[in-house]
């Protein structure tokens, strides 16, 4: 039992830190945060990562991955998240973490050649078409239809919560190609060019006031049948096998550690009754409740990673990562709102009464509410644990 890094691992960590220090400038971060320069600047960042060979650490080396050990990937993710380079709402997630592995695992050679390089170079942005209006956590109830007519699938229906669809070049979709059997059957995995006629992207304004989500409609959208991944009607299997693929990092530990550190700093400068809020015992108790939970979560993640490094299947403890990860992230956002006090309500980036952090605090809080809903609500997560782990 030992949690120290090897000397080689420490060298690697320094290498990552050096990269960050050099390339992750305030100027770049600001341009990414600004809606008007977001896509261009984010692409710039991703190209820098790709130049370094770090765009897709988890991919097999033959497709451009790194071949890192589990520990190195952990170090990489930790450092990147700690610095704020990677975040939970990263646009590269859809290409690198979601569709990429489907393509290299279930796609044919032409598909691999056609799509993987452009994911790495960020010349093509992806978005995800899984959820549908009304489907919620019952993903398999999807109704968007794809009918084969000659060389093309004709797609009709709508997808919802398509994050960044308004920036995306491609969308990967689960579509229904057969409705005769169980709902999990008859689903196919299609790659669709967003420029195809008949696709309409309708913005959904979030409760944070921003536009990151969309509803994407498909009206007789003709998709070449070579864009089908694997076999027709087997898409559910491909999508599902992917859900376990990235579940090692769903806890967002580093992001929450970053959030906690910021919170402590803010509490030192916010004034309450003649002393900094950070010195107030009530506040200390509230924040330490969460800090302790986060310390536990961090080691739960390490336990999972250590098992993975030893080539073992993730144990029961991995099931709590998303659940507790989202609860802790939300709790931190909640306290940060309280620290901002009156200023947390301000819906205005410029008029901030000297509390410039407040607007971002509000956005993070509001946007963060969804973390206990997407990817299966926390209630669904508990159902799954009850069944899979406790044996009910």
């Amino acid at each position, binding site marked *: 039992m030992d949690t120290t890094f090897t000397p080689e691992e420490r060298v690697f960590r320094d290498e990552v830190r050096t990269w960050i220090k050099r390339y992750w400038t305030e100027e770049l971060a600001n341009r990414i945060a600004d809606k008007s320069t977001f896509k261009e600047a984010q692409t710039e960042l991703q190209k820098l990562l790709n130049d370094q060979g770090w765009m897709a650490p988890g991919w097999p080396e033959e497709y451009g991955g790194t071949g890192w050990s589990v520990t190195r990937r952990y170090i990489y993710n930790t450092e990147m998240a700690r610095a704020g380079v990677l975040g939970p709402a990263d646009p590269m997630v859809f290409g690198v973490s979601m569709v990429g592995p489907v393509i290299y695992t279930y796609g044919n050679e032409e598909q691999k050649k056609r799509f993987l390089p452009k994911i790495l170079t960020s010349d093509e942005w992806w978005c995800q078409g899984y959820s549908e209006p009304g489907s919620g956590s019952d993903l398999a109830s999807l109704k968007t239809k794809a009918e084969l007519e000659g060389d093309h699938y004709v797609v009709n229906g709508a997808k919802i*919560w398509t994050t960044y669809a308004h920036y995306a070049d491609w969308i990967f979709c689960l579509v229904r190609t057969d409705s005769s059997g169980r709902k999990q059957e008859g689903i196919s995995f299609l790659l669709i060019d967003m420029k195809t006629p008949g696709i309409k992207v309708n913005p959904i304004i979030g409760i944070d006031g921003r536009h990151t989500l969309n509803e994407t409609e498909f009206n007789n959208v003709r998709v070449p049948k070579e864009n089908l991944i694997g076999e027709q009607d087997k898409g559910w299997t491909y999508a599902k096998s992917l859900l376990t693929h990235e579940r090692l990092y769903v806890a967002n530990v580093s992001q929450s550690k970053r959030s906690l550190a910021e919170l402590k700093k803010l509490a030192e400068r916010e004034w309450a009754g003649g002393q900094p809020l950070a010195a107030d015992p*009530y506040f200390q108790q509230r924040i330490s409740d969460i800090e302790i939970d986060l310390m536990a979560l961090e080691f739960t993640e390490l336990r999972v990673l250590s098992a993975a490094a030893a080539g073992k299947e993730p144990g029961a403890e991995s099931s709590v990562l998303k659940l507790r990860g989202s609860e802790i992230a939300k709790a931190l956002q909640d306290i940060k709102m*309280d620290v901002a*006090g009156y200023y947390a309500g301000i819906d205005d980036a410029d*008029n901030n009464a000297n509390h410039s952090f407040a607007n971002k605090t509000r956005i993070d809080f509001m946007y963060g509410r969804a973390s206990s809903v997407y990817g299966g609500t926390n209630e669904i997560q508990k159902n799954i644990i009850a069944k899979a782990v406790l044996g009910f």
Partner: protein
Amino acid sequence: MDFSFSEEQSMLKDSVTRFVQDNYDFESRRTLAASDAGFSTEHWQTFAELGWLSIPFSEGFGGFGGGVVDSMVVMEELGKGLVLEPYLATVLLFGGLLQKSGNQVVQDAYIGSIIEGSLQGAFAFVERDSRFVLNAVRTRAEKSDGSYWINGEKTVVINGASADKIVVSARTSGNTHDEGGISLFVIDSKEAGVKISSYRMMDGQVVANISLDQVSVSTDHMLGEEGEALEVMQEVINDAMIAVSAEALGAMEKALQITVDYTKIREQFGVAIGSFQVLQHRMVDMFTAVQETRSLLYRAACSLEAGSDEAIKDLYALKVKVGRAGKLVGEEAMQLHGGMGMTDELDVGHYAKRLRMINTLFGDADFCQQRFAQLSYR
């Protein structure tokens, strides 16, 4: 022991309920919230016609002579519709200060106009670093040449953008955290040296930062005795705490109702999601929180009206519960709506936002719990 409303209060309640039902469907509210003023002057005239603007004022000024229970009745119903009109700022805060100040000059000058709906007011009591402490006042007023000259800055002034007249707290003596030495002045929003910079809050309210640069106020526009204003400020804010708690209660009730209705209809896995026991129990927890809020609201309102020794403790207990229950109900309502709850287009998230803002208003749950503890364990 009686928790029923008087006949007058019941009528008042019904009239507000009807107004909200007829005028405040979610789409109409959205349009109003997006307008420049952030509320409807037409609605405001309706408020005047229905007599709501006269409630806290003495009959001598043409008022209704109402107490905290009366404004509580109004505010609960306004809360159900997330009503945007500045009833709190103009009538309860600005009006309340005038009513309690004993300054006949300003009472005669402005109360009539409030009642007829032609004057908007505000109370500027927050500063950059004051947080929830009323006596954390840096803004200063100095007397010279028969006037007071005010310098300083106030932040997040509710209704600050629309107010014609603004009551400003300023220090006429002492240091930032002293309890004595604070005075109140009624200034005109167009007075030279007043700079109003307005912006929106997440609940749709339009508020303002107000900077005051050598703003002149005549001595007859000071409320009460020089340096003795903290008590009247606290009194008015105590009454306002009942009011916003009632508003929060209305908002919670509505958020719960919306959620119960939604989960009965929304299907997943082939059944209404409301059939899941876990979700039912969470709505029971929301219901319990709402009941507790109502109980503490009645407790604080009765003891404040009766002038009980326990009134302040009751009030802080109420505000703690309003903060915690408001968070619980607001967030659970969103969560139980799933992804839809996190969109701007559904009403439920807006209830959560307003509840969050009310938690902060006049001191959040943590702050009020500390005050409560000081009274309970001294």
